């Protein structure tokens, strides 16, 4: 019952915000900004820059709110706008490059370890080269397909696959090193 109420409230809030009702816009911002800043922070290491990108993302959200058809989840719709905004920011700052070298598929060894916190996970992802990071986050966390990643990043599907593979390989090496350091291998 509460979920239905919440959904109805959000629908109404979206309608009002689309008509430039500032209070409704503020409520939507307060409800979603925490998660959206987290999305931007995944792609952009500097938190201040991530926040700037999130704000311009929200500007686009409110500008195009009339185009939101209430067909999918509102959060999913905002997330996609944020991801595009991050890509555009990284591209304009020339931070997006995709390291290409030989692509083979050797076995990735597996090790056992305890749970990692969100911050530990973020630190490991932050250490990846930009292209690997982007593709890894888009594929493994945001759930984009290789064809979608290729279109958004203007690369081929093959490049997307190889970047993901290399990201995984590098992450695995880091996890092994971390486990060895903690003596859990």
């Amino acid at each position, binding site marked *: 019952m509460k979920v239905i109420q919440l959904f109805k409230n959000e629908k109404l809030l979206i309608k009002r915000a689309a008509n*430039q009702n*500032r209070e409704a*816009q*503020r409520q939507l*911002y*307060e409800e979603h*900004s*925490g*998660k959206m*800043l*987290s999305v931007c*922070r*995944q792609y952009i290491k500097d*938190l*201040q820059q991530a*926040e700037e990108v*999130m*704000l*311009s993302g*929200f*500007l686009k959200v*409110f*500008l195009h709110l009339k185009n939101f058809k209430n067909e999918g989840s509102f959060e999913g719709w905002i997330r996609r706008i944020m991801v595009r905004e991050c890509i555009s920011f990284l591209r304009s700052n020339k931070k997006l490059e995709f390291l290409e070298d030989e692509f083979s598929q050797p076995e*990735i060894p*597996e*090790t*056992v*370890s*305890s*749970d*990692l*916190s*969100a911050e530990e*996970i*973020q630190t490991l*992802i932050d250490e990846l080269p930009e292209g690997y990071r982007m593709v890894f986050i888009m594929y*493994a*966390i945001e*759930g984009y397909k290789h064809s979608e990643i290729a279109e958004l990043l203007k690369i081929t599907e093959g490049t997307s696959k190889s970047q993901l593979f290399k990201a*995984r390989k590098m*992450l*695995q090496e880091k*996890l092994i090193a971390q*486990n060895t350091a903690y003596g859990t291998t």
Partner: protein
Amino acid sequence: MALHRFEEQAERKLRERQIAPSAGSWEKLEDKLGKDEGLQTINKMVDDSIKTEEASKLDKAATRNLKKHTKFKPKQNRPSRGPGLKS
């Protein structure tokens, strides 16, 4: 750690994570929204004015066309005969 477990954790924990924006971030966005709406209003006014101007030009052209193709000549363009010729 098995890589697939790492990915599962990464997906769950990073998707759930929330980072509080800095104080005053809403005000910053509000300011940007205000500027953007102002710009939109100006753009709309410019668009409307262009449309009115174009409509007026079209209207004038249509009147010219109508005058050219009609046999009727407006009275004020005819030379006056003067009052003496009436009878």
